[in-house]
């Protein structure tokens, strides 16, 4: 299955490979599952207005929406969830629902509706990454979509105004963050030692909130206090997105092995040096032989006693 795959997404910023949650989810999952996906940022093109992102293009077919894209990748045998039990798969669905229902509305509000955040951070970024004259249109359009989405899902009636439901929005989101923190505990990933699609979703939702330079955001501060969640984001960035070249998990492992080898060589050199120093100090003593101490003295005796 060596079809080349291209992902149209929003570009990187704030120390992240993409500032856009959905794009980030797919990028993270691709790394976790070893899928070779080329990121094609739509920044500064007319696609900022016309395209639905993220969009995965593989040969003739194209898939949008993170869940659909992940399903597609799994069918192409890029499956980061291979080792999950059925119960863990069920938990994944449940936690993703939690993210969508409880965290998403507050994130939309933080980025697109809160006046200070929008004018200081969100709008400048998206405007500067859209071509003229779309820089006047794209941010505004996203903001309107965000407001409608929040009101539809959270407002008691479509006629309610945003500020009436703000408090509930943020208290739900903080509770969601707390729940995620409890569930993650001290582990690196949500299910054992390797990341799965749930980790991709959580990373996609949390990382922009963690990294964006907001003037003041209670939700961001709340996240900052949940150390295991911020550590979770940092860890994924360091392991999967650290160099400018896309590194797959196996090459990261190779790097680790190479480092271990170098370390071992260094230790060996050191211990040789120490031995030489030792010899010089006790040159008269016959007991200290000038070679590395054998782990099994019996072996040395055997060698000595081998009949000629």
């Amino acid at each position: 299955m060596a079809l080349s795959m291209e992902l149209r997404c929003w570009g990187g910023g704030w120390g992240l490979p993409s500032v856009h949650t959905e794009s980030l989810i797919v990028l993270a999952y691709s790394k976790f599952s070893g899928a070779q996906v080329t990121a094609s940022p739509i920044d500064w093109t007319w696609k900022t207005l016309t395209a639905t992102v993220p969009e995965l293009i593989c040969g003739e077919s194209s898939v949008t929406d993170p869940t659909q894209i992940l399903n597609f990748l799994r069918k192409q045998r890029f499956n980061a969830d291979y080792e999950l039990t059925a119960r863990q798969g069920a938990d994944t669905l449940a936690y993703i629902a939690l993210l969508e229902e409880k965290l998403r509305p507050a994130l939309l509000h933080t980025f697109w509706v809160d006046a200070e955040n929008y004018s200081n951070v969100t709008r400048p970024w998206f405007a500067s990454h859209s071509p003229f004259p779309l820089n006047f249109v794209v941010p505004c359009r996203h903001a309107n979509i965000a407001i409608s989405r929040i009101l539809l899902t959270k407002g008691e009636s479509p006629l309610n105004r945003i500020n009436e439901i703000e408090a509930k929005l943020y208290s739900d989101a903080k509770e969601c963050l707390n729940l995620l923190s409890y569930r993650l505990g001290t582990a690196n990933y949500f299910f054992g030692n390797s990341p799965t699609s749930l980790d991709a979703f959580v990373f996609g939702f949390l990382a922009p909130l963690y990294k964006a330079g907001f003037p003041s955001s209670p939700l961001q501060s709340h996240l900052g206090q949940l150390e295991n969640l911020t550590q979770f984001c940092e860890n994924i960035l360091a392991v999967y997105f650290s160099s400018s070249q896309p590194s797959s998990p196996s090459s990261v492992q190779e790097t680790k092995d190479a480092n271990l080898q170098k370390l071992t060589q260094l230790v060996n050199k050191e211990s040789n040096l120490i031995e030489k120093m030792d010899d010089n100090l006790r040159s008269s003593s016959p007991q200290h032989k000038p070679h590395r101490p054998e782990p099994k003295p019996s072996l040395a005796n055997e060698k000595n006693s081998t009949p000629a």
Partner: protein
Amino acid sequence: MSLAAEAFVSQMAAAEPWPENATLYQPLKEEQILLSDCASSLAVQTYLKMCGLPVQVVCKTNAEFMSPSGKIPFIHVGNQVVSELGPIVQFTKAKGHSLSDGLDDVQRAEMKAYMELVNNMLLTSELYIQWCDDATAAEVYEDVSQCCQALSQRLGTQPFFFNKQPTELDALVFGHLFTILTTRLTSSELAERVRSYSNLLTFCRRIEQTYFEDKNS
């Protein structure tokens, strides 16, 4: 309900014990009530029964308008009115009744996550079935299957989702599944999908028998 109003209601709730004349209001059963509302109402009724809190069910044509939030069901307890499962769970908790106190933080996180899954998938499917036609029906049925599969996996062979003790999650799941199974719709596809998970069927039967045994089926 706004955050301040919720806090106020909780404070007032803590003051008095559960009265004998608590009432639950919903629209009329045969002619009026919608699938999704029926499920939500059943979930609340089940939850109250699990807590051992008596409540009388009254059907009113204008129940929606009587409700403080416009959503059903709502309960009238003492001199307070509370609607929807979430606030009602908080309300009973303020009065000292809770099903999820024995859960640790991780379990509570799981419980909330599964409740959102049910709201996200089953409730949305019910709303869809009620209002829309079959254009994207295939996707909706697929969602329902996925949700049921997840619930079935999570339940396993246990009597309740958190083993021996029922929680609000059990009430919510029962409310939705039982409604889907017992309501006559134009297409029985939805019910068929649920029926294919035998442990969920057993679960529904058990809850029906335990908490609603005097109700004529």
